[in-house]
Protein backbone atom coordinates (compact mmCIF):
# COMPACT_ATOMS: atom_id res chain seq x y z
CA UNK A 1 0.00 0.00 0.00
CA UNK A 2 1.45 3.34 -1.00
CA UNK A 3 1.45 6.39 1.23
CA UNK A 4 -1.08 8.05 -1.03
CA UNK A 5 -3.52 5.15 -0.69
CA UNK A 6 -3.05 5.24 3.06
CA UNK A 7 -3.89 8.93 3.25
CA UNK A 8 -6.88 8.30 1.00
CA UNK A 9 -8.16 5.62 3.38
CA UNK A 10 -7.71 7.89 6.40
CA UNK A 11 -9.59 10.75 4.74
CA UNK A 12 -12.28 8.41 3.44
CA UNK A 13 -12.90 6.88 6.86
CA UNK A 14 -12.98 10.32 8.47
CA UNK A 15 -15.45 11.60 5.89
CA UNK A 16 -17.75 8.58 6.21
CA UNK A 17 -17.69 8.72 10.00
CA UNK A 18 -18.51 12.40 10.21
CA UNK A 19 -21.30 11.95 7.68
CA UNK A 20 -22.71 9.07 9.70
CA UNK A 21 -22.47 11.04 12.94
CA UNK A 22 -24.35 13.96 11.40
CA UNK A 23 -26.85 11.69 9.66
CA UNK A 24 -27.63 10.00 12.95
CA UNK A 25 -29.28 13.21 14.14
CA UNK A 26 -32.01 12.58 11.58
CA UNK A 27 -32.04 8.77 11.95
CA UNK A 28 -32.39 8.92 15.69
CA UNK A 29 -35.22 11.42 15.68
CA UNK A 30 -37.14 9.60 12.97
CA UNK A 31 -36.73 6.20 14.61
CA UNK A 32 -37.68 7.52 18.04
CA UNK A 33 -40.76 9.09 16.49
CA UNK A 34 -41.62 5.81 14.79
CA UNK A 35 -41.47 3.88 18.06
CA UNK A 36 -43.33 6.57 19.96
CA UNK A 37 -46.09 6.80 17.39
CA UNK A 38 -45.35 10.28 16.07
CA UNK A 39 -43.85 11.66 12.86
CA UNK A 40 -40.65 13.37 13.91
CA UNK A 41 -38.90 15.93 11.68
CA UNK A 42 -40.61 15.63 8.27
CA UNK A 43 -40.72 19.13 6.77
CA UNK A 44 -37.29 20.10 5.46
CA UNK A 45 -36.38 18.11 2.36
CA UNK A 46 -37.46 14.58 1.46
CA UNK A 47 -38.53 12.74 4.64
CA UNK A 48 -37.15 15.65 6.64
CA UNK A 49 -33.53 14.74 6.05
CA UNK A 50 -32.42 18.37 5.75
CA UNK A 51 -32.94 18.67 9.50
CA UNK A 52 -29.28 17.63 9.62
CA UNK A 53 -28.26 20.75 7.72
CA UNK A 54 -30.58 22.95 9.74
CA UNK A 55 -29.27 21.57 13.03
CA UNK A 56 -25.64 21.93 12.02
CA UNK A 57 -26.18 25.50 10.82
CA UNK A 58 -27.95 26.31 14.06
CA UNK A 59 -25.05 24.94 16.10
CA UNK A 60 -22.53 26.93 14.06
CA UNK A 61 -24.36 30.23 14.38
CA UNK A 62 -25.16 30.04 18.08
CA UNK A 63 -23.09 32.28 20.29
CA UNK A 64 -20.06 30.34 21.43
CA UNK A 65 -19.92 31.53 25.01
CA UNK A 66 -17.28 30.74 27.59
CA UNK A 67 -18.55 31.55 31.07
CA UNK A 68 -16.33 34.10 32.87
CA UNK A 69 -16.16 31.85 35.92
CA UNK A 70 -14.94 28.84 33.90
CA UNK A 71 -11.38 27.57 33.64
CA UNK A 72 -10.90 28.70 30.07
CA UNK A 73 -8.30 26.32 28.64
CA UNK A 74 -9.68 23.18 30.22
CA UNK A 75 -13.17 24.25 29.20
CA UNK A 76 -12.09 24.46 25.57
CA UNK A 77 -10.06 21.25 25.63
CA UNK A 78 -12.79 19.02 27.09
CA UNK A 79 -15.08 18.76 24.01
CA UNK A 80 -12.07 18.15 21.78
CA UNK A 81 -10.96 15.20 23.90
CA UNK A 82 -14.20 13.27 23.43
CA UNK A 83 -14.15 13.52 19.63
CA UNK A 84 -10.40 12.89 19.40
CA UNK A 85 -10.45 9.79 21.59
CA UNK A 86 -13.40 8.23 19.76
CA UNK A 87 -11.96 8.99 16.33
CA UNK A 88 -8.63 7.50 17.40
CA UNK A 89 -10.40 4.26 18.32
CA UNK A 90 -11.62 3.91 14.73
CA UNK A 91 -7.99 3.62 13.65
CA UNK A 92 -7.85 -0.09 14.49
CA UNK A 93 -11.27 -1.15 13.17
CA UNK A 94 -11.14 -3.34 10.04
CA UNK A 95 -13.88 -2.06 7.74
CA UNK A 96 -12.94 -4.65 5.11
CA UNK A 97 -9.89 -6.87 4.44
CA UNK A 98 -8.00 -3.87 2.98
CA UNK A 99 -9.69 -0.85 4.54
CA UNK A 100 -8.00 -0.61 7.92
CA UNK A 101 -5.90 2.33 9.00
CA UNK A 102 -3.51 0.64 11.44
CA UNK A 103 -3.31 -3.13 11.73
CA UNK A 104 -1.89 -3.03 15.27
CA UNK A 105 -1.01 -6.26 17.05
CA UNK A 106 -2.45 -4.78 20.27
CA UNK A 107 -5.47 -3.36 18.44
CA UNK A 108 -8.07 -4.38 20.98
CA UNK A 109 -6.05 -2.94 23.86
CA UNK A 110 -5.62 0.26 21.89
CA UNK A 111 -9.41 0.54 21.65
CA UNK A 112 -9.70 0.08 25.43
CA UNK A 113 -6.97 2.65 26.03
CA UNK A 114 -8.71 5.25 23.88
CA UNK A 115 -12.08 4.63 25.49
CA UNK A 116 -10.49 5.04 28.92
CA UNK A 117 -9.12 8.42 27.84
CA UNK A 118 -12.62 9.48 26.82
CA UNK A 119 -13.52 9.83 30.52
CA UNK A 120 -11.48 13.02 30.66
CA UNK A 121 -13.91 14.90 28.45
CA UNK A 122 -16.72 14.46 30.97
CA UNK A 123 -14.58 14.99 34.05
CA UNK A 124 -12.81 18.07 32.73
CA UNK A 125 -15.89 19.52 31.05
CA UNK A 126 -17.85 19.22 34.27
CA UNK A 127 -15.11 20.59 36.45
CA UNK A 128 -14.06 23.47 34.21
CA UNK A 129 -17.66 24.74 33.95
CA UNK A 130 -17.47 25.65 37.63
CA UNK A 131 -21.13 24.87 38.12
CA UNK A 132 -22.61 22.60 40.78
CA UNK A 133 -24.78 20.60 38.39
CA UNK A 134 -21.92 20.14 35.97
CA UNK A 135 -19.65 18.97 38.77
CA UNK A 136 -22.25 16.44 39.91
CA UNK A 137 -22.54 15.19 36.34
CA UNK A 138 -18.77 14.92 36.10
CA UNK A 139 -18.55 12.96 39.35
CA UNK A 140 -21.22 10.56 38.19
CA UNK A 141 -19.65 10.22 34.76
CA UNK A 142 -16.23 9.48 36.21
CA UNK A 143 -17.41 6.72 38.53
CA UNK A 144 -19.76 5.24 35.93
CA UNK A 145 -17.16 5.09 33.21
CA UNK A 146 -14.45 3.81 35.53
CA UNK A 147 -16.73 0.98 36.65
CA UNK A 148 -17.97 -0.05 33.22
CA UNK A 149 -14.55 0.17 31.62
CA UNK A 150 -13.50 -2.81 33.74
CA UNK A 151 -16.29 -5.05 32.42
CA UNK A 152 -15.85 -3.80 28.92
CA UNK A 153 -12.25 -5.00 28.88
CA UNK A 154 -12.94 -8.27 30.68
CA UNK A 155 -16.00 -9.15 28.57
CA UNK A 156 -13.84 -9.04 25.43
CA UNK A 157 -11.14 -11.27 26.89
CA UNK A 158 -13.21 -14.40 26.14
CA UNK A 159 -12.95 -13.59 22.43
CA UNK A 160 -9.22 -12.97 22.81
CA UNK A 161 -8.86 -16.39 24.45
CA UNK A 162 -10.66 -18.07 21.55
CA UNK A 163 -8.55 -16.24 18.97
CA UNK A 164 -5.22 -16.03 20.76
CA UNK A 165 -4.61 -12.51 19.45
CA UNK A 166 -5.42 -8.88 20.14
CA UNK A 167 -5.33 -8.09 16.45
CA UNK A 168 -8.80 -7.30 15.10
CA UNK A 169 -8.10 -8.73 11.62
CA UNK A 170 -7.11 -12.02 13.28
CA UNK A 171 -10.29 -11.94 15.37
CA UNK A 172 -12.43 -11.44 12.26
CA UNK A 173 -10.56 -14.18 10.40
CA UNK A 174 -11.09 -16.58 13.31
CA UNK A 175 -14.87 -16.19 12.86
CA UNK A 176 -14.83 -17.63 9.34
CA UNK A 177 -16.42 -20.90 10.44
CA UNK A 178 -18.69 -19.52 13.15
CA UNK A 179 -19.41 -16.09 14.63
CA UNK A 180 -18.24 -15.62 18.21
CA UNK A 181 -21.75 -14.70 19.35
CA UNK A 182 -22.37 -18.48 19.41
CA UNK A 183 -19.45 -19.21 21.75
CA UNK A 184 -19.63 -15.99 23.75
CA UNK A 185 -23.31 -15.00 24.12
CA UNK A 186 -22.76 -13.77 27.68
CA UNK A 187 -19.67 -11.88 26.62
CA UNK A 188 -21.69 -10.11 23.90
CA UNK A 189 -24.47 -9.07 26.29
CA UNK A 190 -22.02 -7.80 28.89
CA UNK A 191 -19.98 -5.93 26.29
CA UNK A 192 -23.05 -4.26 24.87
CA UNK A 193 -24.28 -3.15 28.30
CA UNK A 194 -20.82 -1.83 29.11
CA UNK A 195 -20.75 -0.12 25.73
CA UNK A 196 -24.03 1.69 26.39
CA UNK A 197 -22.71 2.81 29.76
CA UNK A 198 -19.40 3.87 28.25
CA UNK A 199 -21.08 6.08 25.65
CA UNK A 200 -23.41 7.28 28.43
CA UNK A 201 -26.47 6.90 26.27
CA UNK A 202 -29.96 6.46 27.64
CA UNK A 203 -30.80 4.41 29.75
CA UNK A 204 -27.34 5.05 31.24
CA UNK A 205 -27.12 8.80 30.63
CA UNK A 206 -26.63 9.42 34.34
CA UNK A 207 -23.93 12.11 33.81
CA UNK A 208 -26.34 14.37 31.93
CA UNK A 209 -29.72 13.26 33.31
CA UNK A 210 -31.60 16.35 32.15
CA UNK A 211 -34.48 15.80 34.56
CA UNK A 212 -32.24 16.14 37.62
CA UNK A 213 -28.97 17.76 36.53
CA UNK A 214 -30.26 20.05 33.71
CA UNK A 215 -27.65 18.76 31.25
CA UNK A 216 -24.99 17.56 33.64
CA UNK A 217 -21.42 18.01 32.52
CA UNK A 218 -22.24 20.06 29.41
CA UNK A 219 -24.79 22.41 30.97
CA UNK A 220 -22.52 25.45 30.40
CA UNK A 221 -21.59 24.58 26.82
CA UNK A 222 -23.10 26.25 23.79
CA UNK A 223 -22.55 26.51 20.07
CA UNK A 224 -20.10 24.19 18.42
CA UNK A 225 -18.46 23.16 21.70
CA UNK A 226 -21.75 21.57 22.68
CA UNK A 227 -21.86 20.27 19.12
CA UNK A 228 -18.62 18.40 19.74
CA UNK A 229 -20.14 16.56 22.71
CA UNK A 230 -23.16 15.85 20.53
CA UNK A 231 -21.08 14.49 17.63
CA UNK A 232 -18.84 12.63 20.07
CA UNK A 233 -21.86 10.79 21.42
CA UNK A 234 -22.98 9.69 17.95
CA UNK A 235 -19.45 8.69 17.04
CA UNK A 236 -19.34 6.69 20.27
CA UNK A 237 -22.51 4.83 19.31
CA UNK A 238 -21.03 4.05 15.91
CA UNK A 239 -17.79 2.91 17.52
CA UNK A 240 -19.45 0.53 19.99
CA UNK A 241 -21.67 -0.88 17.21
CA UNK A 242 -18.65 -1.39 14.96
CA UNK A 243 -16.72 -3.07 17.77
CA UNK A 244 -19.65 -5.36 18.58
CA UNK A 245 -19.85 -6.40 14.94
CA UNK A 246 -16.10 -6.97 14.74
CA UNK A 247 -15.84 -8.94 17.95
CA UNK A 248 -19.02 -11.04 17.90
CA UNK A 249 -20.72 -10.86 14.50
CA UNK A 250 -17.96 -11.68 12.05
CA UNK A 251 -16.94 -8.13 11.11
CA UNK A 252 -16.77 -7.80 7.33
CA UNK A 253 -17.45 -11.51 6.75
CA UNK A 254 -20.53 -12.30 4.73
CA UNK A 255 -21.71 -14.04 1.54
CA UNK A 256 -19.46 -13.11 -1.38
CA UNK A 257 -21.99 -11.49 -3.72
CA UNK A 258 -21.66 -8.12 -1.99
CA UNK A 259 -18.43 -6.33 -0.98
CA UNK A 260 -17.16 -6.80 2.61
CA UNK A 261 -17.61 -3.15 3.58
CA UNK A 262 -21.29 -3.48 2.76
CA UNK A 263 -21.71 -6.34 5.24
CA UNK A 264 -19.75 -4.44 7.85
CA UNK A 265 -21.84 -1.30 7.38
CA UNK A 266 -25.11 -3.20 7.37
CA UNK A 267 -24.41 -5.07 10.58
CA UNK A 268 -23.21 -1.87 12.25
CA UNK A 269 -26.39 -0.07 11.21
CA UNK A 270 -28.48 -2.74 12.94
CA UNK A 271 -26.67 -2.17 16.22
CA UNK A 272 -26.99 1.58 15.90
CA UNK A 273 -30.74 0.97 15.55
CA UNK A 274 -30.62 -1.17 18.69
CA UNK A 275 -28.99 1.72 20.58
CA UNK A 276 -31.84 4.01 19.55
CA UNK A 277 -34.44 1.38 20.41
CA UNK A 278 -32.92 1.12 23.91
CA UNK A 279 -33.29 4.87 24.28
CA UNK A 280 -36.90 4.72 23.15
CA UNK A 281 -37.92 1.92 25.48
CA UNK A 282 -35.97 1.89 28.74
CA UNK A 283 -36.21 4.22 31.75
CA UNK A 284 -33.11 5.63 33.40
CA UNK A 285 -31.97 3.79 36.55
CA UNK A 286 -30.97 5.65 39.68
CA UNK A 287 -27.27 6.41 40.05
CA UNK A 288 -26.60 4.00 42.94
CA UNK A 289 -28.59 1.29 41.17
CA UNK A 290 -26.37 1.66 38.12
CA UNK A 291 -23.13 1.40 40.08
CA UNK A 292 -24.47 -1.46 42.23
CA UNK A 293 -25.64 -3.30 39.11
CA UNK A 294 -22.18 -2.96 37.65
CA UNK A 295 -20.06 -4.07 40.55
CA UNK A 296 -22.38 -6.60 42.16
CA UNK A 297 -23.91 -8.32 39.13
CA UNK A 298 -21.88 -7.66 36.01
CA UNK A 299 -18.41 -8.11 37.52
CA UNK A 300 -19.09 -11.63 38.91
CA UNK A 301 -20.81 -12.60 35.63
CA UNK A 302 -17.88 -11.36 33.58
CA UNK A 303 -15.40 -13.23 35.75
CA UNK A 304 -17.49 -16.43 35.55
CA UNK A 305 -17.64 -16.07 31.77
CA UNK A 306 -13.88 -15.72 31.65
CA UNK A 307 -13.37 -18.75 33.91
CA UNK A 308 -15.67 -21.02 31.92
CA UNK A 309 -14.23 -19.88 28.58
CA UNK A 310 -10.72 -20.51 29.82
CA UNK A 311 -11.60 -23.94 31.21
CA UNK A 312 -13.37 -25.06 28.00
CA UNK A 313 -10.59 -23.71 25.80
CA UNK A 314 -8.04 -25.62 27.86
CA UNK A 315 -10.13 -28.80 27.77
CA UNK A 316 -10.58 -28.70 23.98
CA UNK A 317 -6.91 -28.02 23.41
CA UNK A 318 -5.82 -31.31 25.08
Amino acid at each position, binding site marked *: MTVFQHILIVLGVLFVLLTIAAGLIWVERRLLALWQDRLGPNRAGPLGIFIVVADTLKLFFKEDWIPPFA*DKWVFVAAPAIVVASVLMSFVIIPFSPVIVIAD*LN*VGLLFFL*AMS*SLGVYSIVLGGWASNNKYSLLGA*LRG*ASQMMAYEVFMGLSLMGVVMLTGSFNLQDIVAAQRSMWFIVYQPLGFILFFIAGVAETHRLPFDIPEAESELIAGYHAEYSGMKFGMFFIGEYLGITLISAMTVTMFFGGWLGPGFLPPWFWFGGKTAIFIGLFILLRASLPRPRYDQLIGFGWKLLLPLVLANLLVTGAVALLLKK
Partner: protein
Amino acid sequence: MSTLFYLSSLVAIVATLMVITRYHPIHALLYLVVSFLAVAMIFLSLGAPFVAVLEVIIYAGAIMVLFIFVVMMLNLDKDTALQEKQWLRPRVWVGPALLTLVLLLEIGVLLVRGDLPALQLAVVTPRQVALSLYGEYLIAVELAGFLLMAGIVGAAHIGKHKKESLHRFLREETDAHEASAGDAREVHTGDGEGIPEKERKTWQL
Protein backbone atom coordinates in the same frame (compact mmCIF):
# COMPACT_ATOMS: atom_id res chain seq x y z
CA MET B 1 11.96 5.01 15.44
CA SER B 2 14.75 6.74 17.38
CA THR B 3 13.45 10.17 16.27
CA LEU B 4 10.08 9.25 17.78
CA PHE B 5 11.87 8.13 20.91
CA TYR B 6 13.73 11.41 21.38
CA LEU B 7 10.68 13.49 20.51
CA SER B 8 8.45 11.73 23.03
CA SER B 9 11.20 11.87 25.64
CA LEU B 10 11.35 15.61 25.16
CA VAL B 11 7.58 15.86 25.57
CA ALA B 12 7.77 13.74 28.71
CA ILE B 13 10.46 15.93 30.26
CA VAL B 14 8.73 19.20 29.43
CA ALA B 15 5.36 17.89 30.65
CA THR B 16 6.89 16.69 33.91
CA LEU B 17 8.55 20.09 34.44
CA MET B 18 5.15 21.69 33.94
CA VAL B 19 3.67 19.30 36.51
CA ILE B 20 6.08 20.66 39.09
CA THR B 21 5.73 24.33 38.23
CA ARG B 22 1.95 24.67 37.79
CA TYR B 23 0.20 26.33 40.71
CA HIS B 24 -3.20 24.85 40.05
CA PRO B 25 -3.43 21.15 41.02
CA ILE B 26 -5.77 20.18 38.14
CA HIS B 27 -3.51 21.78 35.56
CA ALA B 28 -0.55 19.95 37.09
CA LEU B 29 -2.45 16.67 36.89
CA LEU B 30 -3.32 17.27 33.24
CA TYR B 31 0.36 17.75 32.46
CA LEU B 32 1.02 14.51 34.36
CA VAL B 33 -1.45 12.77 32.03
CA VAL B 34 0.45 14.14 29.05
CA SER B 35 3.67 12.90 30.63
CA PHE B 36 2.22 9.39 30.97
CA LEU B 37 1.09 9.43 27.34
CA ALA B 38 4.59 10.46 26.33
CA VAL B 39 6.07 7.61 28.38
CA ALA B 40 3.67 5.25 26.61
CA MET B 41 5.01 6.56 23.30
CA ILE B 42 8.54 5.88 24.53
CA PHE B 43 7.63 2.27 25.29
CA LEU B 44 6.00 1.95 21.88
CA SER B 45 9.04 3.31 20.07
CA LEU B 46 11.25 0.86 21.98
CA GLY B 47 9.15 -2.09 20.77
CA ALA B 48 6.95 -2.78 23.80
CA PRO B 49 3.40 -2.11 22.52
CA PHE B 50 1.77 -4.11 25.31
CA VAL B 51 3.39 -2.08 28.10
CA ALA B 52 2.66 1.11 26.16
CA VAL B 53 -1.06 0.38 25.97
CA LEU B 54 -1.20 -0.72 29.61
CA GLU B 55 0.48 2.54 30.57
CA VAL B 56 -2.34 4.42 28.88
CA ILE B 57 -5.14 2.21 30.20
CA ILE B 58 -3.95 2.01 33.80
CA TYR B 59 -2.00 5.19 34.52
CA ALA B 60 -3.49 7.75 32.15
CA GLY B 61 -6.97 6.24 31.95
CA ALA B 62 -7.65 5.01 35.47
CA ILE B 63 -5.28 6.24 38.17
CA MET B 64 -5.08 9.82 36.94
CA VAL B 65 -8.87 9.96 36.58
CA LEU B 66 -9.14 9.01 40.24
CA PHE B 67 -6.60 11.70 41.18
CA ILE B 68 -8.53 14.32 39.26
CA PHE B 69 -11.76 12.98 40.72
CA VAL B 70 -10.48 13.56 44.26
CA VAL B 71 -8.92 16.97 43.57
CA MET B 72 -12.11 18.03 41.82
CA MET B 73 -14.15 17.33 44.94
CA LEU B 74 -11.77 19.30 47.19
CA ASN B 75 -12.88 22.51 45.43
CA LEU B 76 -9.43 24.09 45.45
CA ASP B 77 -9.29 27.67 44.25
CA LYS B 78 -7.07 30.73 44.40
CA ASP B 79 -6.03 30.17 48.02
CA THR B 80 -4.33 26.90 47.09
CA ALA B 81 -2.60 28.52 44.16
CA LEU B 82 -1.28 31.25 46.48
CA GLN B 83 -0.09 28.68 48.98
CA GLU B 84 1.59 26.75 46.21
CA LYS B 85 3.32 29.95 45.08
CA GLN B 86 4.74 30.47 48.54
CA TRP B 87 5.95 26.91 48.71
CA LEU B 88 7.72 27.14 45.38
CA ARG B 89 10.23 29.81 46.42
CA PRO B 90 13.80 29.41 45.09
CA ARG B 91 15.07 28.69 48.61
CA VAL B 92 13.08 25.44 48.51
CA TRP B 93 14.01 24.12 45.11
CA VAL B 94 17.50 25.39 44.54
CA GLY B 95 19.24 22.61 46.55
CA PRO B 96 17.63 19.62 44.77
CA ALA B 97 17.99 21.44 41.46
CA LEU B 98 21.76 21.84 41.94
CA LEU B 99 22.14 18.15 42.79
CA THR B 100 20.09 17.19 39.73
CA LEU B 101 22.25 19.47 37.63
CA VAL B 102 25.25 17.32 38.54
CA LEU B 103 23.38 14.24 37.31
CA LEU B 104 22.43 16.09 34.12
CA LEU B 105 26.07 16.95 33.48
CA GLU B 106 26.98 13.29 34.00
CA ILE B 107 24.42 12.25 31.41
CA GLY B 108 25.76 14.91 29.06
CA VAL B 109 29.31 13.58 29.45
CA LEU B 110 28.13 10.02 28.83
CA LEU B 111 26.24 11.07 25.70
CA VAL B 112 29.18 13.04 24.34
CA ARG B 113 31.65 10.20 24.89
CA GLY B 114 29.22 8.08 22.91
CA ASP B 115 30.15 4.63 24.24
CA LEU B 116 26.53 3.90 25.16
CA PRO B 117 24.88 0.72 23.89
CA ALA B 118 22.58 1.43 20.94
CA LEU B 119 18.80 1.35 21.40
CA GLN B 120 17.59 -2.23 21.58
CA LEU B 121 14.65 -2.59 19.22
CA ALA B 122 13.27 -6.04 19.94
CA VAL B 123 9.48 -6.22 19.82
CA VAL B 124 7.94 -7.92 22.85
CA THR B 125 4.54 -9.37 22.01
CA PRO B 126 1.65 -9.65 24.48
CA ARG B 127 2.05 -13.43 24.34
CA GLN B 128 5.63 -13.24 25.61
CA VAL B 129 4.60 -10.89 28.43
CA ALA B 130 1.80 -13.25 29.47
CA LEU B 131 4.01 -16.34 29.38
CA SER B 132 6.68 -14.77 31.55
CA LEU B 133 4.12 -13.32 33.98
CA TYR B 134 2.33 -16.64 34.47
CA GLY B 135 5.49 -18.76 34.22
CA GLU B 136 8.63 -17.28 35.62
CA TYR B 137 7.05 -14.58 37.79
CA LEU B 138 3.93 -16.43 38.94
CA ILE B 139 4.67 -15.91 42.65
CA ALA B 140 5.13 -12.18 42.20
CA VAL B 141 1.85 -11.92 40.30
CA GLU B 142 -0.01 -13.83 43.00
CA LEU B 143 1.54 -11.73 45.77
CA ALA B 144 0.51 -8.57 43.94
CA GLY B 145 -2.97 -10.07 43.71
CA PHE B 146 -3.02 -10.59 47.48
CA LEU B 147 -1.95 -7.02 48.06
CA LEU B 148 -4.71 -5.65 45.80
CA MET B 149 -7.29 -7.91 47.43
CA ALA B 150 -6.27 -6.62 50.86
CA GLY B 151 -6.74 -3.09 49.56
CA ILE B 152 -10.20 -3.88 48.22
CA VAL B 153 -11.31 -5.58 51.45
CA GLY B 154 -10.05 -2.62 53.44
CA ALA B 155 -11.85 -0.12 51.21
CA ALA B 156 -15.07 -2.14 51.38
CA HIS B 157 -14.82 -2.23 55.18
CA ILE B 158 -14.26 1.51 55.49
CA GLY B 159 -16.88 2.35 52.90
CA LYS B 160 -19.58 0.21 54.43
CA HIS B 161 -21.65 1.97 57.05
CA LYS B 162 -25.17 1.53 58.27
CA LYS B 163 -27.50 4.40 57.58
CA GLU B 164 -28.35 6.10 60.84
CA SER B 165 -31.01 8.48 59.70
CA LEU B 166 -33.54 7.50 57.12
CA HIS B 167 -36.08 9.46 55.15
CA ARG B 168 -39.50 9.08 56.74
CA PHE B 169 -40.83 7.00 53.85
CA LEU B 170 -37.91 4.60 54.00
CA ARG B 171 -38.20 4.50 57.77
CA GLU B 172 -41.74 3.17 57.65
CA GLU B 173 -40.60 0.56 55.17
CA THR B 174 -37.78 -0.50 57.47
CA ASP B 175 -40.10 -0.51 60.47
CA ALA B 176 -42.56 -2.77 58.74
CA HIS B 177 -39.77 -5.02 57.62
CA GLU B 178 -38.22 -5.26 61.05
CA ALA B 179 -41.57 -5.80 62.75
CA SER B 180 -42.22 -8.72 60.45
CA ALA B 181 -38.80 -10.10 61.27
CA GLY B 182 -39.67 -9.96 64.96
CA ASP B 183 -37.11 -7.33 65.74
CA ALA B 184 -38.59 -4.27 67.41
CA ARG B 185 -35.47 -2.11 67.29
CA GLU B 186 -36.39 1.49 66.75
CA VAL B 187 -34.80 3.63 64.10
CA HIS B 188 -34.42 7.24 65.08
CA THR B 189 -34.83 9.68 62.30
CA GLY B 190 -35.32 13.04 63.88
CA ASP B 191 -37.34 13.90 60.79
CA GLY B 192 -41.12 13.74 60.86
CA GLU B 193 -40.97 12.75 64.53
CA GLY B 194 -43.55 15.27 65.69
CA ILE B 195 -46.08 14.49 62.98
CA PRO B 196 -49.32 12.83 64.05
CA GLU B 197 -49.74 9.24 63.01
CA LYS B 198 -52.74 10.00 60.81
CA GLU B 199 -50.99 12.64 58.74
CA ARG B 200 -47.97 10.42 58.17
CA LYS B 201 -50.19 7.75 56.71
CA THR B 202 -51.60 10.13 54.14
CA TRP B 203 -48.09 11.09 53.07
CA GLN B 204 -47.28 7.51 52.49
CA LEU B 205 -50.07 7.33 49.96
